[in-house]
């Protein structure tokens, strides 16, 4: 397996690195955690790109270029740090990703072009994830084991033990990563995931990541959950867990690395809860206005890097411009791309089947008389 923690192994399409003038420190620290400057700059750049993409998406949902926006501004630190450490590929030797709909940063961190996100947002026929069928952020990428994201809250949690079971049988260090929000953990599927991944003697390599933004649409976490930290719900199952500050990329990077190392090597589950912010509300349905009261992981990290002499304001501005231009270019590109046609509607319902007398290739409408 490639060491995805090694910044030298980071491919260029994950963002490259910045050059800086003068002395720069070797590491960036937060408490006991440290991150190499090189990794810090890579994470920062991907966070900037993710934020630019989300902000462009919100604008598109308001301008009519898109119909609906949902995403994860405020969760960039967690998503990017996770995406950069995924061992990506197809099949059980690599990590499986069971995501929800606030994970653009994971996919950008893994190397997905912004254009692939914007095409889904704009509902084009060129949308590689769903051919314009699904909400934005509902990715599906078999070549990276990103199984289709659904809007049905928490169902991804009951699928993760299945991929993890196959990974454990296969051998190696592939893990199944299941990501959800805090409100979704009220569904029984969260407990199902804990139960199925911790069966005595049949423990499974499932890394459950809960991004706790404190809300389920309009309902506060504290009004519905007596358990202060969701991760503690892993205790009765004997599952290791950690709750971290999801607004500090240095903390997140190291916590993700520790959790992944444990799951990869011990072949047992782990629950990582990251306390994050929700900077633009639930979705475009609630206006997606910026909430300036909550901590912004990107602004905090920017200040930390400037204060630490890792980057300066001009370089930050250049990064922002670069990211904004990339998002703008994607929006312009999709504006001229084809939309689905009525003929596309049933395509891909069924896989070809040699044992189906009615639909040997694909769905073709209700069964008819043979000629």
């Amino acid at each position, binding site marked *: 397996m490639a060491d995805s923690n090694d910044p030298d192994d980071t491919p260029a399409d994950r963002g490259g690195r910045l050059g800086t003038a003068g002395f720069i420190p070797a590491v960036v620290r937060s408490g006991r955690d440290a991150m190499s400057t090189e990794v810090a700059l890579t994470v920062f750049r991907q966070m900037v790109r993710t934020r630019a993409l989300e902000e462009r998406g919100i604008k598109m949902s308001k301008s009519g270029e898109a119909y609906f926006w949902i995403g994860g501004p405020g969760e960039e630190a967690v998503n990017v740090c996770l995406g950069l450490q995924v061992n990506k590929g197809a*099949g*059980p030797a690599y990590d*499986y990703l069971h995501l929800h709909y606030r994970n653009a940063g994971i996919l950008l961190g893994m190397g997905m072009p912004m254009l692939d996100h914007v095409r889904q947002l704009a509902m084009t026929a060129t*949308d*590689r*994830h*769903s*051919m314009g*069928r*699904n909400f934005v952020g*509902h990715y*599906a*990428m*078999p070549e990276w*084991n990103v*199984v*289709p994201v*659904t809007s*049905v809250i928490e*169902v991804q*949690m*009951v*699928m*993760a*033990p*299945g*991929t*993890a*079971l*196959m*990974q454990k049988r*296969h051998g190696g260090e592939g893990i*199944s990563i299941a990501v959800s929000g805090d409100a979704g953990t009220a569904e*029984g*599927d969260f407990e*199902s995931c804990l*139960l*199925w991944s911790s*069966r005595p003697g049949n423990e499974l390599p499932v890394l459950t990541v809960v991004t706790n933004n404190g809300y389920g649409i309009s309902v506060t976490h504290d009004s519905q959950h007596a358990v202060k930290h969701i991760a503690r719900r892993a205790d009765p199952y004997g599952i290791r867990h950690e709750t971290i500050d999801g607004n500090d990329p240095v903390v997140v990077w190291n916590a993700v690395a520790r959790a992944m190392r444990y799951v990869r090597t011990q072949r047992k589950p782990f629950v990582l809860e990251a306390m994050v912010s929700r900077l633009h509300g639930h979705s475009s349905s609630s206006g997606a206005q910026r909430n300036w009261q909550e901590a912004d992981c990107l602004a905090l990290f920017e200040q930390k890097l400037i204060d630490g002499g890792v980057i300066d304001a001009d370089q930050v501005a250049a990064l922002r411009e670069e990211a904004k231009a990339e998002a703008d270019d994607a929006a312009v590109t999709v504006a001229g791309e084809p939309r689905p046609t009525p003929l596309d509607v049933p*395509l*891909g*319902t*069924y*896989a*070809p*089947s*040699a*044992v*189906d*007398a*009615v*639909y040997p290739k694909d769905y073709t409408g*209700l*069964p*008819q*008389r*043979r000629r």
Partner: protein
Amino acid sequence: MALHYGEEHLGVTDVFGEDVGPPLGGVFTATQGLKTAWNSPLDERGILGTAMGIAYAGGKPVCEIQFCDYAFNSIDLMKVAGNQRWCSAGAFAMPIVVMTPNGAGIRGSIYHSHSFESWASRLAGWKVVMPSNPLDAYGLMLAAIQDPNPVLVLLPKALMRVKGDQPIPGEPADSDDLGRMIDAPIGDRTDWRPNWPAVEEYIVPIGKAARVREGHSATVLTWGRLVPLCAKAADELAREFGHTYDVIDLRSIFPYDWDLISRSIEKTGRLLIANEDTEVTNFGEHLLRRAIDEHFYDLLVKPRTLMGKHLPGIGMNQVYEDNSVPQYPDVKAAMRDITAEPA
């Protein structure tokens, strides 16, 4: 035996569910001795979700919901399983098989007597089959395993212990011999291993109905538990009144064999649709609508249905079951009526 063939020859990696693995081997003992069978937590959503995950990662799972009555808490997951390919623009397949006992007839009371086919027929992206005899059960299960799409195999509870007229290819002629070979002994089974007969491949294509009786007086379209009842009634009514019936065993709920159904209606001009699911938004009503849409001028008398009553459940006392879902006298009377009405 189909699952044994499946794990030996068709790549089945997992047969699992509640009580599916040893020592019990299924509450109907249908999974005893399988090398890939294992017991799961008592969690239908977990069963279905895990099957999906296994399929994503290249496995071929056959999972069981112990009774279809317990599948209702998983119906949204079934919807998701059915849409994974379409939602991903064809990028992901979902080759899972879910098997579950269906319908009434074993005095199962309120929570072991449901029918699920009408609910299942609304799960686009799925294929839904329901055999009415052991050979079809074998052939449809092999088809379900080979099909790369999600397939729901509904097994009529009342017929699961009924011996069929036609043997499975490779099945010993003497059922006692078969029992000695593959039925686990009572008591300690720790060291028991099955002695599987050399069964062979036999496929019933999905979407192919079977005409189990051929006639000209009326078309009787049915499936599951009512198939042998309709066939028996057809035989008796032929003797008693000289009426002959096309009795069609649908076998595949979806996709269904419209070719056979349509040609039969055209031939007889009379249609009875009989099944035991409840009557409000019954799958038979869809077939009735198509029959009227496409054969209105071919029909000699009004088409009709015989279905279960729209009740919250089937009660434990036999009087409830006898008066909730069609019984043999109801079937025979309905078949008699449709041929008795003047054109």
